[in-house]
């Protein structure tokens, strides 16, 4: 019972909800760049939202189902094709044994997710299958390679094909305005710098990866401090470098950092950032913590509603 990776693509990894409880040892959480897309893909096939999925960039993975499989795709628009049939994004399907899934052409976003019923049964490390590229652990401990086989459970009882209503999707955009909270060192910014931060259109630079996005833009006129004693950071932390430039820490960020943490992207908007690539843009709008909390709770509730819908319609 397995899935064969015919072509691995450039950076295809197994991810899940992440590896928690080990940040004090310097072991980061890992996990998907677009947590929403991963969760939707899982829910569509009846999994737990944080089960193991494939995250793939373009050129993307090409896989062969070696057994009948109920699967779902979500995230970037990359024109998924099952044998010769184009698939709708944000949808679940049944693949018969021997069918092949590939992605033909990216039209929006940078990362697609493939979930299968029961989740990928790859190697668990410290309670998670997320690939930790720094530690070389979790699943294959590396990006997938041609010829890898991914074990799966022998379940395909449910083969319904469902698509998520568009109203549920975050407002994905190539130049999103994302909501941010002030970070622990926000107080280092004067009024001009805060205005600048929320008015500038930043561009994601080349060399941005799963660890972090470097932003091109007018530097913040806010110098005179350099590094500070290392302290904890998180997915979405925006760091201020000594030259006034910014970095957004992404899913594979290190556990700690020595640059001022001026702001943090609201978790509800991380999926918007997680779909960006070099050349895309981003701007920031400040919100307070309570608003960010409420938005995140709404997101949980939306996903719970989706789960109920899938449970209901999936039985037909």
């Amino acid at each position, binding site marked *: 019972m397995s899935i064969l990776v015919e072509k691995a693509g450039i950076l295809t990894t197994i991810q899940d909800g992440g590896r*928690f*409880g*080990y*940040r*004090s*040892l*310097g*072991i980061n959480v890992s996990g998907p760049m677009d947590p929403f897309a991963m969760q939707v893909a899982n829910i569509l096939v009846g999994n737990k939202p944080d089960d193991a999925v494939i995250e793939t960039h373009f050129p993307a993975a090409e896989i062969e189902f070696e057994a009948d499989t109920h699967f779902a795709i979500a995230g970037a628009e990359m024109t998924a094709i099952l044998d010769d049939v184009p698939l709708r994004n944000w949808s679940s399907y049944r693949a018969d044994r021997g069918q092949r899934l590939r992605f033909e052409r990216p039209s929006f976003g940078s990362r697609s997710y493939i979930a299968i019923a029961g989740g990928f049964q790859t190697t668990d*490390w*410290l309670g998670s299958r997320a690939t*930790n590229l*720094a*530690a*070389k*652990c979790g699943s294959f401990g590396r990006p997938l390679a041609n010829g890898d086989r991914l074990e799966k459970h022998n379940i395909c009882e449910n083969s319904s094909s469902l698509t998520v209503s568009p109203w549920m999707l975050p407002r994905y955009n190539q130049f999103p305005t994302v909501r941010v*909270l*002030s*970070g*622990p060192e926000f107080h280092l910014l004067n009024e001009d710098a805060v205005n600048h931060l929320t008015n500038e259109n930043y561009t994601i630079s080349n060399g941005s990866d799963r660890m972090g996005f470097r932003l091109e833009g007018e530097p913040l006129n806010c110098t005179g401090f350099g590094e500070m*004693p*290392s*302290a*904890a*950071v*998180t997915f*979405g*932390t925006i760091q201020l470098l000594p030259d006034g430039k910014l970095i957004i820490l992404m899913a594979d960020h*290190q*556990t*700690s*950092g020595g640059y001022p*943490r001026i702001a*943090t992207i*609201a*978790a509800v908007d991380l999926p918007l950032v997680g779909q960006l690539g070099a050349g895309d843009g981003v701007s920031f709008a400040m919100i307070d*913590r*309570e608003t*960010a*909390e*409420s938005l*995140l*709770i709404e997101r*949980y509730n939306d996903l719970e509603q989706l789960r109920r819908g899938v449970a209901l319609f999936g039985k037909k």
Partner: protein
Amino acid sequence: MIEPVRIVPLSESAITVEFGDTITLENNQKAIALANELNNEPFDGMIEAVPAYKSTTIYYDIFSVRQANSEISGGPAVEKIVRDRLRNLLLRDEVKAQTKVIEFTADAGEFDLQYVADTKQISVNEVITIFTSAEYRVFMLGFLPGFAYLGTIDERLVLPRREKPRQRVPAGSVAIAGRQAGVYPLDSPGGWHIIGQTSTPMFTPVADNITALRAGMRVRFEAV
């Protein structure tokens, strides 16, 4: 009773408790003690507590925290819990175990031992003697799995980081920068001055002790 200097949100799902503006033994002890206390007895919805030089960051799941504390929003609820815990927190020696000794080979060849000696205008032997005669504290782990920030380096060895970081520092490199020392657990880019190599593994993915060092431990180096 411990009073934090301030408690600030890191995100809507994490707060950072700051114990001071400078790195002191006491601030670091507080940070580690709070993290240990919380990790030993996590509150409902807590994910993990992580100590740093002079702060502790507490990550939590906002949905679970709200379920357990319906009367107020999540962030303030967590802050209240943490303040209560701090009130009863006692500073102890976090790790009772004896000092960990790391043997290493001083290496004046390929790397920076000679450079450190020349820049500080002392001999290579003096660099090693100064480095090995101090006992270091593990202030925190970060940067890489198992990378321990050790302090405090004798003033006679203090140097800024390399201007150009190396693309690849080999695993096991013993290095110094500023008032800090560390051992690279994995091959990685790095900007510290390498003064030797150890074969003691700092990070073992499958083991009871995944990392050789933990925050609060004490370390000495022995040149062999």
